[in-house]
């Protein structure tokens, strides 16, 4: 089932499609903050989601329901008015180089827009590691949107599978080390592993972080990480995409 509402019981993923906000300047890897009216006064913060696709027919977000806000968004009805602000933060570098995209779970979301907007898509390779069944994610969509790119996936059925996946990632990073670019989005432990492997092989890598956001615009200082100078920087406005050698994770 491509990129649709899929329920797996425990957590489920769904696509939220919104009207075209008419943004002329945005870059794949940027995100939006979203609130549904049902948040009311109870849920204070908007929720951050990567721009999954942005075309004239609308803005698509790909969301994994995992808590109070994403559950409420999953229960939204067609025609509901949500509050969205963006595009926020900075996006992934787009370079005319062999580019490896590493997606962990719902971290696949920004790579749809990335692949679709790349000038040399035949240089792209996507590796997708996932725990939920493959059809839960917009993976088919990636393949059909950009047929020129190379794609592969890995289903992590139990924790014992993880080292195998990481080995596959390690090898792919090594192959991109000399003149390529590595991009990663996914859970923090995954990004940490990618950061270490990139350092080991001397690969240029960018990571998209998912810290909790209060404001999304750089004002509350609640989402910070340390850069390698030891300074706290806001993930929402200085990121969410960082060069991996410039941050501590």
């Amino acid at each position, binding site marked *: 089932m491509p990129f649709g509402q899929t329920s797996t019981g425990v957590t489920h993923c769904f696509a939220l499609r919104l009207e075209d906000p008419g943004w002329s300047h945005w870059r794949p890897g940027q995100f939006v*903050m979203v*609130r549904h009216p049902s*948040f009311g*006064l*109870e*849920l*204070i*913060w*908007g929720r951050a989601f990567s721009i999954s696709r942005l075309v004239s027919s609308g803005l698509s977000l790909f969301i994994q329901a995992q808590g109070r806000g994403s559950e409420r968004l999953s229960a939204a009805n067609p025609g509901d008015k949500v*509050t969205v*602000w963006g595009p926020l933060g900075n996006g992934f570098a787009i370079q005319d180089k062999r580019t490896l995209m590493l997606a962990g779970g719902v971290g696949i979301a920004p790579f749809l827009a990335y692949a679709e907007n790349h000038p040399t898509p035949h240089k792209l390779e996507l590796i997708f590691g996932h725990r939920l069944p493959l059809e839960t994610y917009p993976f088919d969509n990636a393949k059909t949107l950009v047929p020129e790119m190379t794609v592969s996936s890995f289903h992590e059925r139990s924790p014992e599978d993880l080292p195998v996946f990481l080995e596959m990632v390690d090898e792919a990073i090594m192959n991109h080390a000399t003149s390529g670019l590595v991009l990663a989005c996914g859970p923090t432990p995954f990004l940490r592993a990618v950061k270490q492997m990139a350092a080991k092989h001397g690969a240029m890598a960018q990571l998209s972080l998912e*810290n*909790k956001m*209060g*404001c*999304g*615009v*750089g*004002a*509350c*200082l*609640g*989402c*910070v*990480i340390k850069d390698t100078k*030891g*300074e*706290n920087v806001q993930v929402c*406005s200085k990121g969410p995409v960082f060069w991996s050698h410039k941050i501590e994770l």
Partner: protein
Amino acid sequence: MASKTPTISDPRVSLPGLDLKNPIMTASGTFGYGLEYASFGKLEDLGAIVVKGLSLKPRAGNTMPRIAETPCGMLNAIGLQNIGVERFLEEKLPALPHDTTPVIANLYACDAAEFGELAAALAADERMGALEVNVSCPNVAAGGQAFGQDPKQAAAVTRAVKDAAGDKPVMVKLSPNVADITTVAKAVADAGADMLTCINTLLGMAVDLKTRRPRLANVVGGLSGPAIKPVALRCVWQVCQAVDIPVIGVGGISNATDVLEFILAGAHAVQIGTANFMRPDTVFSIVNELPILMNGYGVMTLDDLRGTLET
């Protein structure tokens, strides 16, 4: 031609040393240095901009995680991360519309002398509109209690800032984490504060049963947002009964109705904090809605409404 009686409500408000086009200020720490929100509305439309708490030297703040969402509120233990007074004056202040909207610095230091030094540095800049003193620093000398909880120390800090501030108005921001907020309010007013800001955050805590750990690295943090509005309103009302200087109300205000409620309880002006996170254009939309709501209630000026609560 017969002149028409004006029917448009006037939200202007006059404070010691400050004439504001409306009573809507931003609350320190929730609006960055102002520029973060410049794309969501016109900064010039705001009554005043209160910026993130400043210290003499830059501060890194507390370790992560330092924010947590709670029902109708949030906890923060940012730990006053800021770029320091020097960089603020050089990099941020020039970009703010200080000539049309007063910019108010929020000051944070750990002893009276340092407060004085900081106040002097800020007051020397003619672009500064006023100083707001945050007395929530836990003072180690006094056994880890915040200045704001001890009337004598709060008064000493107020005097130090007043002495250094020249003709800049000084407001002191009170903590609700005390048995009787009016005792501190009176001590600070007697020490020369021009205005009081009520309230700072309430001490709170959140835990995670799954990880069996506190949700904040600092364990405890400051609670803000709609959840604290009743406490803030009570504090504003009590303090307005106790002192003669203007009170700026803050705590859980998220719309124009909330604003008028605080004015009714006695506040001269208000600050909007956590509600800015709920929607980044909140403070601007409140500015727009306020005169319309005043009109709806037949309130021509805020002076007409202020403190008219019947109890």
